């Protein structure tokens, strides 16, 4: 499975990774800082309150008459509540079931029974943080000693009076809240910086990668001279170096191959050319040999005829080799003329004396006019019909029809809107399946059939080259009814 490049791309992945790192780092740092700061702030606030509270109780306790009446307790509570300038202290004093609060009718719901018991039993300062509907609050409980303290800094003996204080802790919460929002505010710029860095890093990585991709594509298109400019000395630069080395190696091997192929082709052309001069002398006198063979004794006559015939074959072979060499060298060109293809086919067959052996199904005169190279068309039809006559069995048929081109311009750059379809069929055994893909190969001979034929072994290759030169197609197949079918399509141009 492949993600689309935009989603799976290196850039997105880098951005996401950097952003994640930034967020995790800020949030973790923020959370840790928040915890430490929060604990510190709350601790400090609570210590201050407890100290102030104890001081107030200590300074006011000696003035409390003992045992205290309800009024005494009320006065005591009010005095403590107002010992500090802050007005949010709520105080409750208890003594043997009597209670007095600084705020009238205060139920003191924050005070838990456990804490009340703890103050009574342990005779020590007790505090507890509680959450109320109005926010967090600190509850402090303190037993009040009576008389003078013991010597050696001992506490005065407990009197049974307990003082409780409730202070809201909204201030501390405010600090904590601002801390949280500060962390939040820090996260956004950190995230932005992270994304920016990620984009920069991605650019640094992606630029060479993109260059590499473009260069690879150009190589694939056949521009083997493509090289990359190498910057720096990182892994990507190393990769670019490797790419350049590979491209250079590829270029030189391809150049070697081309040179070798060119040399081989030139060699074939040169050999054919060199064979021509001696063959020209031999071909000139074969008629003399043929004429006089009848007057020679039998063995000599056979030898003379053999030489004459084989000279003829050699001439055809060299002609075909020269023709193939011209195709290979790209020197083959079309000499175009507008002709009636149906007439051309009839003329081809008549010129070889096949008009009675090869059946035809041709379009009516002047319906299949087109611009072709008449000589090459003659070669195409003659080679296919000759091939059918040699390797197939009668009846051999040449069929031609004209149809609209599949798509305008589909037949090469010819711009032809019609194509001629020429079909040459025979009634022989057809072409073996393993031979079929090779019928247009040069000198291909299937070992099951004849090892030596009248043809040069280049006839069908030359036919195919001639068809391709016209921008047409050629296929070989077997008909379901038996027999080989060669199908040629030629674009029918009307303008040169």
């Amino acid at each position: 499975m492949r993600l689309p490049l935009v989603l799976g791309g290196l850039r997105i992945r880098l951005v996401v990774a950097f952003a994640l790192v930034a967020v995790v780092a800020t949030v973790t740092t923020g959370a840790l800082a928040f915890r430490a700061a929060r604990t510190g702030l709350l601790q400090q606030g609570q210590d201050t309150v407890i100290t102030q509270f104890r001081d107030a109780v200590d300074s006011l306790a000696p003035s409390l008459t003992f045992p205290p009446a309800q009024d005494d307790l009320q006065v005591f509570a009010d005095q403590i509540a107002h010992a500090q300038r802050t007005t949010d202290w709520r105080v409750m004093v208890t003594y043997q079931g009597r209670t007095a609060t600084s705020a009238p009718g205060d139920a003191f719901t924050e005070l838990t029974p456990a804490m009340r018991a703890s103050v009574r039993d342990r005779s020590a300062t007790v505090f507890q943080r509680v959450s109320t509907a109005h926010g967090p609050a600190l509850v402090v409980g303190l037993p009040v000693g009576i008389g003078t303290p013991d010597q050696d800094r001992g506490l005065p003996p407990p009197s049974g009076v307990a003082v409780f204080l409730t202070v809201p802790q909204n201030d501390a919460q405010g600090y904590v809240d601002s801390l949280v929002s500060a962390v939040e505010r820090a996260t956004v710029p950190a995230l932005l910086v992270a994304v920016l860095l990620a984009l920069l890093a991605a650019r640094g990585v992606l630029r060479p990668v993109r260059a590499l991709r473009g260069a690879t594509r150009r190589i694939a298109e056949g521009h083997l001279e493509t090289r990359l400019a190498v910057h720096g000395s990182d892994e990507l630069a190393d990769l670019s170096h490797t790419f350049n080395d590979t491209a250079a190696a590829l270029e030189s091997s391809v150049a070697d191959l081309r040179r070798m192929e060119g040399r081989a082709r030139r060699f074939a052309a040169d050999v054919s050319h060199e064979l021509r001069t001696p063959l020209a002398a031999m071909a000139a006198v074969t008629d003399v040999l043929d004429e006089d063979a009848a007057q020679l004794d039998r063995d000599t006559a056979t030898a003379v005829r053999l030489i004459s015939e084989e000279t003829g074959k050699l001439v055809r072979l060299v002609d075909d080799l020269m023709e193939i060499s011209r195709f290979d060298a790209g020197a083959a060109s079309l000499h175009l003329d507008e002709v009636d293809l149906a007439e051309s086919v009839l003329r081809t067959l008549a010129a070889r004396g096949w008009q009675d052996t090869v059946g035809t199904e041709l379009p009516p005169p002047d319906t299949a006019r087109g611009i072709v190279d008449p000589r090459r068309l003659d070669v195409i039809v003659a080679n296919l019909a000759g091939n059918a006559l040699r390797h197939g069995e009668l009846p051999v048929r040449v069929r031609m029809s004209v149809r609209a081109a599949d798509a305008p311009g589909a037949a090469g750059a010819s711009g032809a809107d019609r194509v001629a379809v020429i079909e040459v069929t025979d009634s022989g055994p057809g072409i073996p399946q393993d031979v079929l893909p090779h019928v247009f190969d040069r000198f291909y001979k299937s070992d099951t059939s004849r090892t030596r034929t009248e043809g040069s072994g280049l006839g069908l290759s030359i036919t195919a080259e001639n068809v391709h030169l016209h921008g047409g197609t050629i296929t070989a197949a077997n008909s379901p009814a038996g027999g080989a079918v060669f199908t040629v399509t030629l674009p029918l141009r009307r303008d040169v």
Partner: protein
Amino acid sequence: MPRLLLIEDDPAVREGLLLALRRQGHEVAAVATGEEGLAGLRTFRPDVVVLDLMLPGMPGLDVCRRIRVDDQVPIIMATARGDDVDIVVGLEAGADDYVVKPVQARVLDARIRAVLRRVGGGPGGTEAPPRAEQHGDLTIDRAGLTVSRGGVPVPLAPSELRLLLLLSASPGRVFSRQQLLEAVWEHSYHGDSRLVDACVKRLRTKLGETATPGDQRCIQTVRGFGYQFRRFPDPARRAAG
């Protein structure tokens, strides 16, 4: 007996062709270089020249041009190359026909006889009007086989003359290149149509029509089909001067 001048540098080919063409009933003089050939032209007075294009010393194309300066003897060039450009240049230099080596003696003989028939006169033979006919300022004498323009004789090689006679016999009729190949060169239908194009080009040059606008020329190109002889406005054929 037709007299043949063979210019061929390769001794084996020369000897082979000499032997074979003599057996076909020709009187053959064979030389190895273009210079000898040009000399032989004056002394031997051949009816046909068979000229190898690949010659040491003076190239075959130059020999062809030098012959054409003042002689309209039919020239058949033999080329060992399959090089298309050579053929076109050779035809434009004035050759009437060409064969590609290796060539069998009977094929070359057929070409020689065809080109000799061209010298013999235009189509129609005896039916040709005894008097010269007039097409604009062009005078064609079918019996005397001469052509003149504005009173000035135009020397034409046999293929050129035969082509002009054929076309001018039916003004306005369009001939395809294949038809002309068969009628003038006696080639097969699929012969090299460049023979026709090169010959028309030479004819136009000799008639001084290369710069003439297309529809004013005697020989007009019919795009996509072939050539036709211009139908002159005055259909009456006046007797020449």
